[in-house]
């Protein structure tokens, strides 16, 4: 997709369903929401999980249904990774798994046995900010700060994967990460500067 471009394709299907819409009064009838009587309470399976979190080994027993995002935020207390949609659509939950970026909300934690997980909390070296964190601060690449962890994790991956050769390339790579405050221009400025600095990140 070219920069700054808008087209109809991605919402075409919605238009079709909306076109059916008309003023319509539902007759007064009893509506049962769930015909599926078969749905029954499920027993909880507890499973053992071991992985490396920001360089430290973690091993614990978890509810098998736990996503990596909820494991980090609700069970381990690493709240730097953010929940923005739980559908893999906004990027706020981006982490690094074995060096690659991944949206943690769509991942069952149990699928990450023995993996190396890096979260925003693992980027800085003590009080020394990671170059990308410092660049975000310098360029004011956020307002509310809620999407920022995910933007920075994606930004680091962008540079590491060699996708930061131009502003257009950075933008295309970063389209996975929504910023509703609209700090996009400053985010690209920050990534561009880190990429051009040649800093090893």
């Amino acid at each position, binding site marked *: 997709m070219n920069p700054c471009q808008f087209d109809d394709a991605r919402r075409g299907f919605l238009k079709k369903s909306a076109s059916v819409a008309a003023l319509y009064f539902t007759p007064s009838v009893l509506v049962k929401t769930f015909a599926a009587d078969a749905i029954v309470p499920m027993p909880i399976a507890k499973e053992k999980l071991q992985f490396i979190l920001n360089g430290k080994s973690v091993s614990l027993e978890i509810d098998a249904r736990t996503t990596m995002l909820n494991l980090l935020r609700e069970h381990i207390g690493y709240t730097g990774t953010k929940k*923005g*949609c739980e559908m893999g659509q906004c990027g706020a939950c981006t982490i690094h798994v074995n060096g690659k970026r991944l949206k943690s909300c769509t991942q069952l934690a149990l699928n990450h046995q023995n993996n190396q997980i890096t979260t925003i909390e693992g980027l800085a070296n003590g009080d020394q900010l990671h170059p990308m964190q410092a660049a975000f601060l310098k360029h004011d690449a956020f307002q509310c700060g809620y999407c920022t962890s995910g933007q920075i994790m994606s930004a680091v991956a962008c540079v590491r994967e060699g996708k930061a050769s131009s502003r257009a390339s950075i933008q295309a790579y970063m389209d996975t990460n929504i910023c509703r405050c609209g700090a996009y221009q400053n985010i690209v400025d920050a990534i561009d500067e880190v990429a051009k600095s040649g800093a090893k990140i």
Partner: protein
Amino acid sequence: MNNIHFDENNTNYFKLDFADERVDGADKVTGKAKYTAEYNLPNMAYAVFVTSTIAKGTIKNIDTAKAMASPGVLDVIYYANCPSVPGYIKNEWRGHKVLYDNQVKFFGQPIALIVADSLENANAAIRLVRAEYESQAFETNFDLARKDASKLKGTVVYKRGTENKFKEAPVFIEAEYTIPAEVHLPMEMHATIAFWEGEDKVTLYDKTQGPKSTQSTVARTFGLSDKNVRVIAENVGGGFGSGLRSWANVPAAVMASKKLNRPVKLVLTRPQMFTLVGYRPQSWQKIGIGADASGRFVGITHEAISGTSRYEDFREGIVNVSKFLYASDNVDTKYSMLPLDMSTPVWMRGPGEATGSYGLESAIDELSYKLKMDPIALRLKNFTTVNPENKLPFSDINLKDCYAYGKDKIGWKNRPTVPGSLKENGWLIGYGMANGVFGAGKGAATVRALLNQDGKLTLECAVSDMGPGTTTSMTKIAATAMQMPIEKVKFKLGDSDLPPGPSQGGSGTTSTVGSAVDLACSTLKQNLKDLAIKYAPAFASLKSDALEVKNEMVLAVADPTIKIAIVDLLQLSPDKKIDMTIASSGKTAEQLKFTSNSFSSHYVKVAVHPKDGTIKILQVVTTGDAGKIISPKTARSQMIGGVVGGIGMALTEQLEMDHQSGQIINASFGAYKVPLHSQIPPTDVWFVDKPDVNMNSIGAKGIGEIALIGFAAAVTNAVYNATGKRVRDLPITPAKLGFKAKV
């Protein structure tokens, strides 16, 4: 008026060299900043809503047995077992009384609350709750319903001069403009953690733009005194208006915590962010505007209808801008609400003024072509320094400077006077501009200033910071007023226990709280001078107006060798510190002699592909006239954010309904298109940056709304300039420009 800050000779004021990063920025880039849902309390339970699958009707029965039997489920709260809520009975809860009765008023309304020992267990039980409804006829189709005048309510009319005068003008246009509902969608979902610390004392972590407002709502709803309700919102992950009132999650979490006697966390899902925390209502406008041959406006007629819910009235200032931004002797407006079977809308950035400015600024653009006149020249022709509605002079208005900067930077001279006549690299090119305006208020706020014996200054106010950088701005105002290093100043907010401050909304925070901080600091300086005279022997014979406070010292103006460090002075004083709470009022009588507004002027260059209608925004220049800019870096970010929001409004955002079911069908980031990285062009931000001395002691006005207001019209005007096709229904899509949609 205490206006020492803008004394040209007081060069120290402007030369203080602050690091310009956000004072809370390091916490945000390292993930340390904690947002509402991120507090973990001992024995905390997790709550999730079960929501209605009809738009209107009565719940006949809810079968909760299977859910209750599901592992870890502690309770399922619904109308049959809802705890008694005093404010519900006394009608003190504004809005829908969640979980309280069996009435369904919109699709997606909470009908039950599952509380479990873990989020996984709570989520697993949602599908086990079964509801039976008796559904009723409903109406969600704004476009159809608005044509039936009997369905409208709350009509307000305004008239200055003669009604419909525009029709007598030699040149006039009359056109209808429509905007779909749009949704705030801050990245942080709305959430509440509630825990009762005693029988009549509750504490909440809540995503709110107004800790005091939420405190008051909870106190009234649950029959508590304000002091027994504490609301904490230390970091707020965006809001854009959705946090300006308390929604269903607040009473639900509070009642569940009471019923279960343990802390309860309730976080909305992203789809629920579309249905449960407000939206910009869908609107229809008709604008008539006429001018004489010279371009002078003869009359403006502005009619508008916007949606609201069936159970609450929501109105906003859609037609207001037409009354006062431009000189015209004849203006008439008419505004009505249309109740629909949807949840209640709420102010969304720019609120009604953004809607109204889209209409008015589009209409003026249309008129300019009919007059064969440059649209900026047309606006200049009708420029006024006196507000024609209330006849008061604007406290300051510098739109002419904005025009000059914007024209130059966007390359206005290249704008084709004949639409659709300019091509670059095979694309149709167009230029457009539009103005924005919003009231600049100054309300009451109270600030506590604590100057400790180590010389560090802490200021406190129960305001919030949803992202514009309030913490940074307030810290800068204090450091500037005290002429002390910024790292020794701390501004605390986001807690209703702090001295009262306003909700963050309506572009009023910097003016209101900033004025209070400034007042607290000038009082603090006076106290320091008095202490010096009383306790420091070298100052004993001096009068306080012969002293100054700067660089963490008190000095004699005439002889700077007579000085004492503030930390040493505090040691001499009996209290060893200064702790005071100062209340700042609204506008003074002097300030009320003016009408105060912030203004903006936006410039856009677009390219439209002649074959498929693809729209590219090539360049944006946005200018703000909002008095002194306190924090240039964060202010620039706010303007850039307004541009992104405006691009969404103009080209991508639209809440879509299925009117057969009354359901929102694009309730996700995948289907509701907010602007993305690759859609944002280079944006040049410029401020007049001149103190508005008639406004407040700091000379600053808000920019949150004007960053967005008018922007959508700048885009649509540019698209018209590029193509010669006028789309009056947002968002503009290739299909609306007459191109076939790509499949």
